[in-house]
Structure formats: structure tokens, C-alpha cells
């Protein structure tokens, strides 16, 4: 996984609550067999009209936000489906960080598996940051995972919380499966003990 340490980039405002996973990437684009190539379909319903033309009023169709690496939105971002295609689409577009007052659990978790950092900050801070993005290409926001701060355009630092384990994995781009496999003996012991204590447990059989 691509590590995330520090990012300075253009932030795009999306002042919408409950940005659901069908908005982020509609189900008809989930027929892919790979993790890549979904960026062009990110926010399809908001970004394109019925003929597939760009809607000029949508933020990611405007300069300088076409090159946004940070997205700022309102509460409950990523609600809905467990589809990891949502962070894949964001990442493929070039967004590496989403800032919002709150996130849906599964989306939040999926971000950390894909080198994306979700940052939860109070709503008034998110609204303030969105206001500042109107400064255009000069409004760069820095997100520093090592120091756990978001740095505003004026240099002010805003601290954010992140789980220590997730932070460590993201900073180092760790392969979680390889980490878990170091516990293989413990998993086998658990399985053996339980099979002895609860022999009634059944296997999947067709």
C-alpha cells in the first residue's frame, strides 16, 4: 500500500451531508475486476449530465479543483455500501484525503486500506476550511499525518485524532495481511481449542 505521510494540495469543497457511496461511485461501475480506472466515474451523477457532458457547476469540473487532492464535505461522508470502489475511485481521481465532520464506519475503514486518509474535524472547522478553498489555487491545505495536524492557508494548525494502529499502518504503507500472518500460530491454537470445546460447530458443505 502507498504510504501517507504528509500532503500539501488543492482542497475542493463539497458542502453536502450524507455523501453516499452511490454518489461517489454508482453501482453500474462496480463490474470491474481491477482496483484502477474508476477515477473517471467518480461522482458520476453529480459530475456529468445525462449525455455524459461535464456539469460546469460541479466543483471537480472547475479550476483549480480538477487537480484537487483533498476533499472537504459535511457529516456522514461515505454512508451506504461497503464497496471499496469508493476509495479506489477517489484515489484514482487523485484525492488522497477527505476531511468531514463524520464518516460512515465501513468507508472510513476502507480508506486506511488504500492509502487514503479520512480526517474528522468539527463541522465549523470544515465549513471554515471550505470557505478558504474559494481562494482558488492559492488555497492549499497541508495534511500532516505524522504530526496529526491540518495546516490552514494562513499557517494555523488544527490537530486531529486518528487511531494509533491505523496511523502506523498508513505512515508505513504496511501490508496488513502479512502482519496478521505473523499471528498464524495463535489463529491455529484458537481453531484447535474451539473445535475441541464445541464439536457441534458445522462446516460449510453443499
Amino acid at each position, binding site marked *: 500500500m502507498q504510504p501517507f505521510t504528509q500532503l500539501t494540495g488543492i482542497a475542493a469543497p463539497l*458542502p*453536502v451531508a*450524507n455523501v*453516499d457511496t*452511490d*454518489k461517489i461511485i*454508482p*453501482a*453500474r461501475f*462496480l*463490474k*470491474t*475486476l481491477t*482496483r484502477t480506472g474508476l477515477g473517471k466515474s467518480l461522482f*458520476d*451523477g453529480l459530475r456529468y449530465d*445525462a449525455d455524459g457532458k461535464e456539469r460546469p457547476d460541479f466543483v471537480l469540473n472547475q479550476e483549480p479543483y480538477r487537480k484537487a487532492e483533498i476533499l472537504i464535505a*459535511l457529516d*456522514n461522508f461515505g*454512508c*451506504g*455500501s*461497503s*464497496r*471499496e470502489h469508493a*476509495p479506489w475511485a477517489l484515489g484514482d481521481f487523485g484525492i488522497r484525503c477527505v476531511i468531514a465532520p*463524520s*464518516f*460512515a*464506519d*465501513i468507508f472510513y*475503514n*476502507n480508506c486506511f*486500506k*488504500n492509502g487514503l486518509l479520512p480526517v474528522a474535524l468539527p463541522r465549523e472547522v470544515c*465549513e471554515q476550511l471550505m470557505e478558504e478553498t474559494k481562494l482558488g489555487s492559492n488555497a492549499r491545505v497541508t495534511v500532516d499525518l505524522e504530526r496529526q495536524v491540518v495546516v490552514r492557508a494562513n499557517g494555523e494548525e488544527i490537530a486531529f485524532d486518528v*487511531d*494509533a*494502529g*491505523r496511523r*502506523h499502518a498508513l505512515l508505513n504503507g504496511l501490508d*496488513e*495481511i502479512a502482519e*496478521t*500472518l505473523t*499471528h*498464524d500460530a*495463535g*489463529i491455529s491454537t*484458537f*481453531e484447535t481449542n474451539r473445535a475441541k470445546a*464445541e*464439536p*457441534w*460447530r*458445522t*462446516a*460449510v*458443505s*453443499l
Partner: protein
Amino acid sequence: MTSEKTTGAPRTLYEKIWDAHMVEPLASGAALLYIDRHLVHEVTSPQAFDGLRVNGRKVRRPDATLAVPDHNVPTANRDQEIVDPESRLQVATLVENVAAFGVPFIPLNDVRQGIVHVIGPEQGASLPGMTIVCGDSHTATHGALGALAFGIGTSEVEHVLATQTLVQAPSKTMRVTVNGELGLGVSAKDLALYIIGQIGAGGGTAHVIEYAGEAVTSLSMAGRMTLCNMAIESGARAGLVAPDDTTFDYIKGRPMAPKGEDFDAAVAYWRTLPTEAGAVFDKEVVLDAADIAPMITWGTSPDAVIPVTGLVPDPSDLTDDAIRANHQRMLDYMALSPGALIGTPVDVVFVGSCTNSRIEDIRDVALIAKGRKVADGVRAMVVPGSGLVKLQAEAEGLDKVLLEAGFEWRDPGCSMCLGMNEDKLKPGQRCVSTSNRNFEGRQGPGGRTHLASPAMAAAAAVTGRIVDCREFA
């Protein structure tokens, strides 16, 4: 990490399941949680199997894994090749992957095929006290059996395939108690929608919800599945109902359930699972069933819901700018104005999805369809949740009732719940749907979804309008 209550303090159902599956605490503060059942479908698994291949890893426990195609499959003409090339390839890829990795598989033309969350309980693969995961957020459905069941992304699908565990931090706990009895014509779906309306689409975030109270314990297993299915629509990772005799009667005799003395031993264990008196939840919500009418959503978030006899709220009553703008956007998308929703004409009625496609749901529809006709200009489709549900309905003659009334009677799959196959709304079409999400474009680009119960859907089909199903009681 063990839960903080392992030292003899009363524990909740969730805490008991957590403690029983803790393999090892991790330095990060999370824990390695053992997974008993892993359900796999065609949409969220191809990248996971690829990851195993790239790293030379195997599926650790094929005997704990069950795969079935459901999201992307056609619901008609099953004797022919899948028309859409991408869908065909995705289903074919699942077939290849399960063969290469030795995963038990129910193929498309097997009578047991169906929506993964319908067939898990139906086959007895989902049992009380288990941890159950699937690359699908509606995995919460299996919580109806008293299992800890939740949706995961594809990276975690790969993690479970390779290790049979997940790295998890304990959730907060919430108990939603609904006292009293549901009224005539008020179903588990109305209960689910009412609860979401009360706590909000993000109200359950970071929590596992245990549903309790007379209105919940008196539900059938199908009703409990409908209720737990929509736990995710309030943001909760999982929903739970304590296992009881209704649960055990449902499980007994199912193909993968324990048999004979094993079943008795299992039941003895399952009876130890319910939340103990005095156990403390992080949050308690208490509701009264008498307050619940048949519900219907008006907006593009499942918490934008009202009783069918209620009024679509007026955004000008809202003081918060962002919330008001959101509300107005929902009205614009849905082409609605504040005021009564009842009487609004509909174009399509969809009965199906992991929320409402079980035999009980189809009986509810047939009861209203019997002797009536689908209104002119309305397309009404019924998509059973599994091949076995379809067979059961046909054995009861429900297919004939529905076909005579003018409903389509289709083959099992996720269908118009998410419009991955050809079952889609056209732009601007208004649909009363028994599914779980009313997001913009969910049932097809530009489609307008009103979530409701099977009885409400049937009533809309035969009148061509949003009406109160109690008129047909």
C-alpha cells in the same frame, strides 16, 4: 483486548460474541477477531482473489466460506448466456476463483442460488453466536439470528480469505427497545424505517445496535432479518436480535445446521448468549410501537421518512443553511413539494432485495394482489430472494396470483435494488421499492425511489399511487 466486562459484570450479546472470538489482542489496541463465516459474491471479491494470487496465498478455511453470484445476475432468461459482457465476465471470474481456491459455491442455475443474505440463513450457514462477514454492507441481516454480522471492503475480504480473521476495535453498543405491538398493516420494514427516522442516517455510526422489546421479539425470523438488514441505514455496523425459540425453530433442520445431539448442544450454548440483566449499553433508545404507521421515504436518504399519512417536511422550517440546502436538493431530485405524499402517481413497483424478498414478504404482496390488477402504466416486478423462496411461493400458488394481477415474476438476485443488471429505473421514473436505499441514482440514473414495505408496494402497484396499505387490510 477483552471487553472491559470479562470480570463477571453482566455482558451484552455483542460483548459475549466479541469475547468468544478474540484470538489475540494487538499492540495497536485493536484485536484479532476470528471469523466463523465468510460469504462471497461476484462484485467485491475479484480483486481479493487476485491479491491472494499475487502474494501466493491460499484460502485458509474454504469450509468456512460460501460463494454465490447475486448482485449482477439477470433475473430472467437464465437458460441463456448473460447478455451484458461485463456482468458475464464478473460472474465467470467468480466461477474461476472458487474453483481455483476450493471455495464452496452455489452456481447461478442451482435452485439454492439467491441473494447472499437470504441464502445464508436459509441454508443454515448463518447461526447464532457466529461472526459473519461479507463484502456487502447488508451483511447486518444475519444479526437477526443473534450473530455478529457486518459488511467489509474488498481488502478485508482478502484478509479474511487469507487469515480467517479481521483486525477490529470493539464497537460501542446501543440498544433500541420497541415496546408494545405493531398495528395491523404495520410490518418489520415500517419498524426499521421508523427507527432510522428517529435516530438518523448517521445515528448508529460506531455502534452495534441490539433491537429488543415486544415489537421485536414478536417478529418472525423474516421480520427480524428485515429489521437488522437496515441497521446499516442508520450507520450502525451491525444489528442484533437475541436468539430465542423463534430462532431455534427456524434453524432446526436446515441443511448446514447442527443435527441431533449436536443441535441440542448448540441450542444449550445459544441460550447463554442473550444480554444479561444489568448489562450496560453506551446508548439506549426506547420507542413505542403504537406510534408506528406504514412508513415511506420521501427523500434520498433513508432517514427522510414519514408515515404514509404524514407530510413531506417544508425546508423553509429549517434554520441550518446546509441542512436546508440538502433538504431542498432532495425535494428537487424527487420532484416533490412539501405537503402530502399520499396520492402521488408511481411508474414502477419493485418487490425484492435482501430486505424484503422472503416468502413472508411475497405472501404480503399476494394478499393484496389477489383478485386485483396492477394499475395501467405501472410496471410491477417481484424478485424472490432465492430459488427456494421462488419454489415455495410457486408451491403456494402465489406466482399465479401475482401473474394474473399483472406482476412480473422473476428469478432471484439483487435486481433493481441497485441496478447492476438490466433491472433499472429510467430517468425520472418514480418507484415504490421494498429495498433498502433511496440514494440518488441507486435504482438507475435519475430514478426516484420511495422505500416502503411489501404491503405498501403492493398497494401502490394496484392503485398506481402512493396509498396507505391499511385500506386493503
